[in-house]
């Protein structure tokens, strides 16, 4: 059993090739840094077992961000294994830079030229390229599966060479220059980490030390406990430039002989002049988001939700009557009726909307528009201590916070990474859609569209505010190295679109089938039995959940929802946000998936889940938007940012949710009593006063910031 490592530049098609070879459906996208962690999966070549390891994209063997470090470490760990180096055919000049780095260090490379785009920038003669580099070169179309068999043939081939180091002419010339003045052997013998496998097999090859010295890769020298000071002094001051130029000159030399350039620019189109126009960029972005939300919540999504809801009713009715006939109307029937069919089917009816939102986000990701959004937002996000790259993570947060938090790894700066991860839960995820639709729909009717949009905007606004506060207090960001490649625009294939829909539907059904059913049964038990384990469904006593809810009620009363059932649903919502609605359905005894029925039940004065006014509903929705995310997100946060920041993040979330829910409740309540215009006038005055104070303070601060220029701020590298 052999490991095969898949490496390449970001957005070269690594995960697409991984999916093709291992028949997987891992997440791909037309965007820099979709893969942030390694993935390992088994595949077979003529019955022989291989393990393919997918890695985050790298440009060279000198990592800059967290995920790049992961790849370089994986390479060093798997030094004796076969490496698939995938290159984007249309960006070959830059992609081959990494190939040279790998060959210089003696990796056993199979070069894969991937045709991502139909646009032919280069016509390549693979055989010539293979003989020039001295390695196997395969031409593939990873998405269509073209050339995969060929690649497998190369992978099963045993490497008969004693060593894979390539003595390219520029390496020899550069080595000569400093070899005479420095005794490399002595440096290695005296200091090197001798037991490390990579060190034993690669490091002691003296040219590597020379190349690393030219690259001024201090981390490398530190890691292998090598003396760097002396050797750095011997290399020219502009050694980095000399080495990079030598490599690119060599690439140009190769491409001149085996490739023909047919187009000028890759990635930039005439369409970008409109999309990136300073007057049109933001209106286009807002229109795209508005269209996605409209299609998800109100037209296509709502239509399919209605159909599914009726279908679920049709399915559940005969099953329930069968159970009733078998067991009678006792607690067994109650479990099926309320906990399983009532609660779960209510959430299930939202499946079309949830799947659609994921689908649209994936189309956005595939289109190449994400890089453009990052470019547009870099100005704004830079001001609050984030990077344009954070846009991807935050937009993914609208889908699922758990997976979005993981993508924060593509940040270069640790503080920016923590901030981005912490901010993800403020983006309203798909699991909250049922809450907004059921609860908001009951009280705001047709106007609920504005409530939902308002909640989405509130989430974004709170995230911006918290990021700014963290940036000036606990998590000051360093200068961001925002460097992002522009991929060409692409249309998602029907096959991929279908796969995305199926994957998200499957994940949602699994969640409903596992977490929600078990949670609902637990909630049913807690709301049907007292602390003395007496069945209290008929209102003969107080249930466990009711007692807990009533105990906590005074805390939530100032927010307008001191009702035990609401508090209980919020508590269980920490497990998964979908459970909030299913528990509300259970408390109100709803036995069908019809969301309209559930909404209507909330308006009844006899409703167990009781909202006293629209103000309390709004306050509840704001609290749901902002309070502690689901347990899976907390676990991911813990994994990405550690114990301390997870704890701080949960505290901030609860505090912000509580304060904002209170403010919203009080303002809405005041509007109902004193009139909307009066309250608006007061709030506008307060806002203007705050803005004036802020502007004055900022002007004073700016004057102090830099004596040399007016607007350089903290980004100034010169002064």
């Amino acid at each position, binding site marked *: 059993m052999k490991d095969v490592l898949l490496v390449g530049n970001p957005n070269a098609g690594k995960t697409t090739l991984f999916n093709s070879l291992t028949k997987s459906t891992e997440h791909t996208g037309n965007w820099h840094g979709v893969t942030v962690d390694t993935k390992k999966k088994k595949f077979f070549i003529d019955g022989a077992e291989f393990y393919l390891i997918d890695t985050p994209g790298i440009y060279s063997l000198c990592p800059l961000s967290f995920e790049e470090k992961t790849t370089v470490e994986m390479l060093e760990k798997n030094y004796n294994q076969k490496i698939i180096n995938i290159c984007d055919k249309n960006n070959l000049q830059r992609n081959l830079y990494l190939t040279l780095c790998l060959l210089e260090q003696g990796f056993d490379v199979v070069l894969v030229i991937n045709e991502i785009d139909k646009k032919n920038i280069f016509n390549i003669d693979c055989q010539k390229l293979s003989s020039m580099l001295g390695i196997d070169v395969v031409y593939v179309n990873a998405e269509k599966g073209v050339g995969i068999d060929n690649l497998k043939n190369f992978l099963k081939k045993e490497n008969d060479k004693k060593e894979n180091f390539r003595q390219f002419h520029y390496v020899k010339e550069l080595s000569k220059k400093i070899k005479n003045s420095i005794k490399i052997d002595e440096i290695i013998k005296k200091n090197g980490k001798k037991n490390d496998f990579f060190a034993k097999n690669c490091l002691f090859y003296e040219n590597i030390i020379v190349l690393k010295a030219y690259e001024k890769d201090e981390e490398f020298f530190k890691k292998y406990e090598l003396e760097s000071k002396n050797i750095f002094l011997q290399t020219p001051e502009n*050694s980095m*430039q000399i080495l990079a*130029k030598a490599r690119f000159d060599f690439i140009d030399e190769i491409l001149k002989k085996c490739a023909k350039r047919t187009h000028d620019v*890759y990635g930039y189109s005439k369409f970008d002049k409109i999309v*990136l126009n300073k007057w049109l960029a933001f209106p286009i972005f807002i229109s795209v988001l508005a269209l996605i939300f409209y299609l998800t919540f109100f037209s296509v999504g709502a239509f399919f939700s209605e159909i599914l809801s009726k279908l679920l009713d049709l399915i559940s009715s005969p099953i329930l009557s069968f159970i009733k006939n078998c067991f009678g109307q006792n607690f067994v029937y109650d479990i099926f009726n309320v906990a399983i069919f009532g609660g779960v089917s209510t959430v299930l009816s939202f499946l079309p909307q949830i799947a659609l939102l994921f689908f649209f986000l994936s189309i956005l990701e595939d289109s190449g528009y994400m890089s453009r959004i990052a470019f547009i937002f870099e100005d704004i996000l830079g001001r609050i201590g984030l990077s344009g790259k954070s846009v991807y993570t935050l937009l993914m947060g609208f889908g699922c916070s758990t997976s979005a938090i993981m993508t924060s790894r593509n940040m270069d700066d640790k503080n920016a990474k923590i901030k981005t991860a912490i901010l993800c839960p403020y983006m309203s995820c798909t699991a909250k859609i049922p809450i907004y639709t059921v609860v908001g729909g009951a009280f705001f009717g047709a106007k609920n569209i504005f409530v939902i949009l308002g909640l989405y905007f509130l989430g974004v606004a709170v995230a911006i505010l918290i990021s700014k506060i963290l940036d000036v207090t606990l998590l000051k960001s360093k200068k961001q190295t*925002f*460097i*992002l490649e522009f991929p060409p625009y692409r249309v998602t294939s029907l096959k991929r679109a279908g796969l995305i829909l199926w994957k998200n539907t499957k994940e949602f059904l699994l969640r409903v089938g596992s977490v929600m059913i078990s949670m609902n049964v637990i909630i049913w038990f807690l709301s049907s039995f007292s602390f003395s384990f007496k069945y209290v469904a008929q209102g003969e006593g107080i249930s466990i959940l009711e007692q807990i809810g009533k105990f906590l009620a005074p805390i939530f009363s100032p927010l307008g929802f001191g009702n035990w059932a609401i508090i209980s649903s919020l508590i269980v919502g920490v497990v998964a946000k979908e459970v909030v609605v299913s528990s509300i359905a259970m408390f109100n005894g709803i036995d069908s998936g019809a969301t309209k029925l559930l909404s209507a039940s909330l308006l009844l004065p006899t409703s167990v889940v009781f909202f006293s006014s629209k103000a309390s509903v709004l306050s509840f929705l704001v609290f749901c938007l902002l309070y502690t995310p689901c347990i899976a997100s907390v676990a991911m946060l813990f994994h990405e940012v550690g114990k301390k920041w997870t704890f701080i993040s949960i505290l901030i979330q609860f505090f912000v949710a509580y304060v904002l829910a209170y403010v919203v409740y009080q303002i809405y309540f005041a509007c109902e009593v004193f009139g909307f215009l009066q309250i608006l006038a007061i709030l506008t005055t307060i806002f203007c006063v705050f803005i004036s104070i802020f502007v004055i303070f900022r002007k004073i601060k700016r004057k102090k910031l830099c004596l040399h220029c007016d607007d350089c701020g903290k980004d100034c*590298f010169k002064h």
Partner: protein
Amino acid sequence: MKSLDKVQKNKNFKVVGFTGQPDGVTRRLLELGFTIDERVKILSTSIQKKVLLVQIRGYVLSVRASLLSRVQVE
């Protein structure tokens, strides 16, 4: 000689060197193709001109202006 963040849009320039201490960011710019004598062109700027769209070696990158201020062109 000018820094790349200060040059006119849609005009070709040639990289002539770097300013400041060579560090990870300089190394990254070099890996991406900003080598001596290479032709570059600014295609677009963000609203506040803090990010620039640069064409180099046949592809396009968006880079923060403060980073491009290290690249000297003529």
